[in-house]
């Protein structure tokens, strides 16, 4: 039993790809060992930005033997009448390398045949691994690959060394022009040159001596603990941005945090968002917040190296931070000389998505769409004015020096500059909020103008992109339209904006001045994209497929309403009366359908009810159902109008007993055609009462 080490030493891999590469390597190794019949106790991976390694414990010295049964000639030709083997049997045994005596007769493939049990002896593990390990390396995939030499192999970054050891022995092979061996590479500056491994067991110890912290959890611990205690030392706490922390964990082999400071006057002069973005995104430092939550003029950088000459490193980082913040100050001054009018004019020269004109054109369409949306929703005059103003200004910051340098501050700078220039706070807030949510689960607009602008901006983007032929397909969504569609859903729901998505996209598509039929088709596809996202979001919440399908099959594409109906139906389905109600509904619908009539939609059910003639009601159960339905229907209708769908469903559930009694005792298909028509009308009325909530015909089982 020996330990196996495979370490692939690369030039710095993309930090975002290392964890996935390790995962792939681990699971591919387990599968490959099983496939190769190599006994292994456990498999684990370790890695950094410069190396990915897989370690297998307890590798058996040999591959397991393989026993297989090989079919030979038919039994009747293999033995003569006396039962002695014929030439056919002897030849077969020789070819399989077994003795004639060991041949057996077996029932196989519908006949009796001679069979040989052939034992293939397992090869030594090291021989097997020569073939397995290169294939393992080749199986690791990266989001983006490269070539670096004539051999044409593709990988995340160039492979420079391969360590392959089974116990003390090298597993010899070549991959990507690199021969496997026992020499690894230590940390770029802390290592001592030759990182030679006597055996696989010494991997962690040797790498430790070589300054490489192999375990990502240990690297994370060093960064978090170090940053926290350094920040504490200057009276604050580090802002541990998750994305930054992960990037550092996977881009540094030997993390050593250090604290630095900068001129408080710079921190005063610059908006805190600018300071944080400069530190986090551009410098990869943690910003430090003081007790009150305000930023301290300090940062925590994480060096890839040891504590030697840390003062010199600190001086360097402090010098660079000062230069970057002074740079930002310069952008701020430059922008102070400009203004929204000039910026808006410049938007005419900034391209929107190909084929859709300039950002300025986009803004005009958003202004139109937002105005329509506000009118459709009956928004008050003050908020409509704020919305109109914000819509006009919402993209202006794209051409400011600050946003050109820090694109992640789009919207934020818009808010800051709007406030600077005396715009109303609601306008400034809407400018920033219209980019929200930035991703799935991101913060949503807090103000109504912000929410309406967020919807209008995305509606125009989606409709226009579809008109330009840029619809997402498969995993390809280069313009983020699915994300935009999900954003529309979240904002509509959060702010309870009861607008039909069909109407919304009709309006958005009409902004492009294309022929009506093209606009209508684009609107239809845009609304479908939003419905797809809504469906996915509801299913993510744990609603059954058929619940979602049933509520989306009726109504006008009003997102918050669909969400409410989905929730009510989902809750109702766990109640015992659901099963009986479903049975009653389905029986009613089936009989009505067989008679050739149709179940009316919600708005028609009253007429259907009116079609029931009381004078033709004969049976008590028929009368009971009619009475129960009549008293329930108007209340159901009221509950649906109030969008109290839970109440509506409870009321309908109250009909299950009269319906059951009706089916038990009343013959719907009565000989008298008038009576028959009347009973069918009653059932249609009953089924029609469901139509304001969901299409119960789509609900498959009363789960």
């Amino acid at each position: 039993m020996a330990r196996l080490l495979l370490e692939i030493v690369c030039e710095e891999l993309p930090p975002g790809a290392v964890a996935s590469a390790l995962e792939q390597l681990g699971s591919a190794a387990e599968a490959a060992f099983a496939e190769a019949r190599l006994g292994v106790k456990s498999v684990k991976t370790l890695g950094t930005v410069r190396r990915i390694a897989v370690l297998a414990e307890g590798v058996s010295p040999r591959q397991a033997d393989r026993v297989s049964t090989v079919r030979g000639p038919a039994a009747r030709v293999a033995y003569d009448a006396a039962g002695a083997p014929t030439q056919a049997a002897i030849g077969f045994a020789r070819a399989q390398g077994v003795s004639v005596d060991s041949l057996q007769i077996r029932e196989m493939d519908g006949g009796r045949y001679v069979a040989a049990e052939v034992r293939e002896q397992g090869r030594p593990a090291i021989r097997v691994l020569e073939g397995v390990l290169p294939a393992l390396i080749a199986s690791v995939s990266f989001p983006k690959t490269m070539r670096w030499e004539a051999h044409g192999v593709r990988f995340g970054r160039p492979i420079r060394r391969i360590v392959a050891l089974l116990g003390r022995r090298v597993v010899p092979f070549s991959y990507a022009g690199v021969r496997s061996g026992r020499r690894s590479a230590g940390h770029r500056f802390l290592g001592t040159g030759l990182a030679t491994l006597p055996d696989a067991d010494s991997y962690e110890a040797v790498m430790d001596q070589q300054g490489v912290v192999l375990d990502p959890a240990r690297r994370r611990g060093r960064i978090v603990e170090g940053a926290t205690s350094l920040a504490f030392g200057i009276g604050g706490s580090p802002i541990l941005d998750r994305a930054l922390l992960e990037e550092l964990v996977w881009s540094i082999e030997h993390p050593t945090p250090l604290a630095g400071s900068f001129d408080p006057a710079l921190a005063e002069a610059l908006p805190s968002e600018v300071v944080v973005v400069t530190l986090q995104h551009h410098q990869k430092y943690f910003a430090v917040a003081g007790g009150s939550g305000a930023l301290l003029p300090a940062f925590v950088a994480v060096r890839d190296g040891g504590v030697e000459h840390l003062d010199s490193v600190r001086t360097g980082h402090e010098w660079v931070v000062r230069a970057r913040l002074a740079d930002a100050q310069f952008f701020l001054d430059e922008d102070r000389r400009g203004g929204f009018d000039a910026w808006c004019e410049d938007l005419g020269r900034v391209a929107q998505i190909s084929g859709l004109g300039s950002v300025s054109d986009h803004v005009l369409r958003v202004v139109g769409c937002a105005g329509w949306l506000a009118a459709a929703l009956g928004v008050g005059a003050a908020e409509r004015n704020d919305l109109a103003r914000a819509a006009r200004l919402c993209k202006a910051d794209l051409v400011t020096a600050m946003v050109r340098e820090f694109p992640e501050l789009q919207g934020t700078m818009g808010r800051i500059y709007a406030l600077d220039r005396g715009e109303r706070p609601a306008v400034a807030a809407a400018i920033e909020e219209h980019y929200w949510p930035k991703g799935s689960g991101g913060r949503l607009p807090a103000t109504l103008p912000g929410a309406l602008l967020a919807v209008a901006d995305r509606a125009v983007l989606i409709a226009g992109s579809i008109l330009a032929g840029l619809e997402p397909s498969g995993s390809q969504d280069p313009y983020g339209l699915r994300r935009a569609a999900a954003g529309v859903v979240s904002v509509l729901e959060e702010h309870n904006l009861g607008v039909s998505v069909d109407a919304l996209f009709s309006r958005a598509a009409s902004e492009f001045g294309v022929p009506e039929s093209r606009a209508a088709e684009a609107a239809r596809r845009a609304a479908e994209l939003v419905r797809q996202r809504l469906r996915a979001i509801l299913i993510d919440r744990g609603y059954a497929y058929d619940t979602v399908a049933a509520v989306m099959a009726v109504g006008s594409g009003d997102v918050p309403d669909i969400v409410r109906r989905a929730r009510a139906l989902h809750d109702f389905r766990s109640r015992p009366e659901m099963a009986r109600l479903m049975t009653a509904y389905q029986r009613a619908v089936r009989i009505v359908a067989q008679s050739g009539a149709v179940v009316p939609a919600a708005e028609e059910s009253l007429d259907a009810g009116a079609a029931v003639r009381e004078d033709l009601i004969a049976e008590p159960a028929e009368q009971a159902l009619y009475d129960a339905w009549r008293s329930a229907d108007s209340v159901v209708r009221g509950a649906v109008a109030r969008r109290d769908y839970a109440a509506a469903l409870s009321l309908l559930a109250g009909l299950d007993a009269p319906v059951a009694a009706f089916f038990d005792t009343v013959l719907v298909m009565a000989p008298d055609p008038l009576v028959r028509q009347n009973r069918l009308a009653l059932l249609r009325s009953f089924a029609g009462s469901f139509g304001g909530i969901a299409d119960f015909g789509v609900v498959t089982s009363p789960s």
Partner: protein
Amino acid sequence: MLRTRRAANFQEMFLALHRFWAGLGCVIEAPYDVEVGAGTLHPATFLKALGPKPWRVGYVQPSRRPVDGRYGENPNRLYKHYQYQVILKPAPADVQDLYLRSLENLGLDLVCHDIRFLEDDWEAPTLGAWGVGWQVFLDGQEITQFTYFQQMGGLDLDLISVELTYGLERLGMFLQRKASVFDLEWAPGVTYGEVRHEEERQHSAYGFEHSDPGTLRGLFDAYEADARRLLEISDASQVLPAYDCVLKCSHLFNLLDARGAVGVAQRVELMGRTRALAKACAVAYLERLAGDDAEDEARG
């Protein structure tokens, strides 16, 4: 315990890099004498990266980006800056170590600093070119773009080159600890500002105020037409002059852009026209190389 060392002045950086890379077999070329936006456009990079022949070169390339002009008022932004460009084709296996040694050769004691290779993929859509690599950071300062070319002119490369592009001003400011680029010591007793400030002022004013869009457009059309005409000539024998015309187009586009004279649709169109020419030059250059090889074989 700070180690002190003498910071190289600006011109000593050129000289030190020349000596270092010449010692590793690089041809030391001169800057290209047609305006370019980046050292990559020098024929010694764009064209020599094509084809199967090994090549090593180092040169300083003044690079013009009209839109970055700030009239010499911003301590960090320049209309024209200097790149030190190295091409190693094929990329040697120890290229990162060679690069780090070149930094030591500039007087940097690496153990006193924090050197990081941070993922950064490079793309130049107007050249149909892209590569993967890193930005190299020195104590948080970006000092070099380090790229393995994958495609040039839309063509997969036969032999992968590595490109090192040192940002000389940034590196110099770090070494000399100067807050403004104009305070850099260029030569003993001479500052960067004395050498270049007036040029920044005049060219920024030209780019933003005084250039004539009509003239620039006319020149763009003329150079484009000439590039096409030259590429028609048999055996690709005029591909190098044609490529010069493409560089002119590229720079004229940058000037029009800085002037705010390019609308959205036109911007896409002009970039597309430039890219098409760059690709045509790459194809013609390879055709020419293949022709030369055939001739060599016939002679041999």
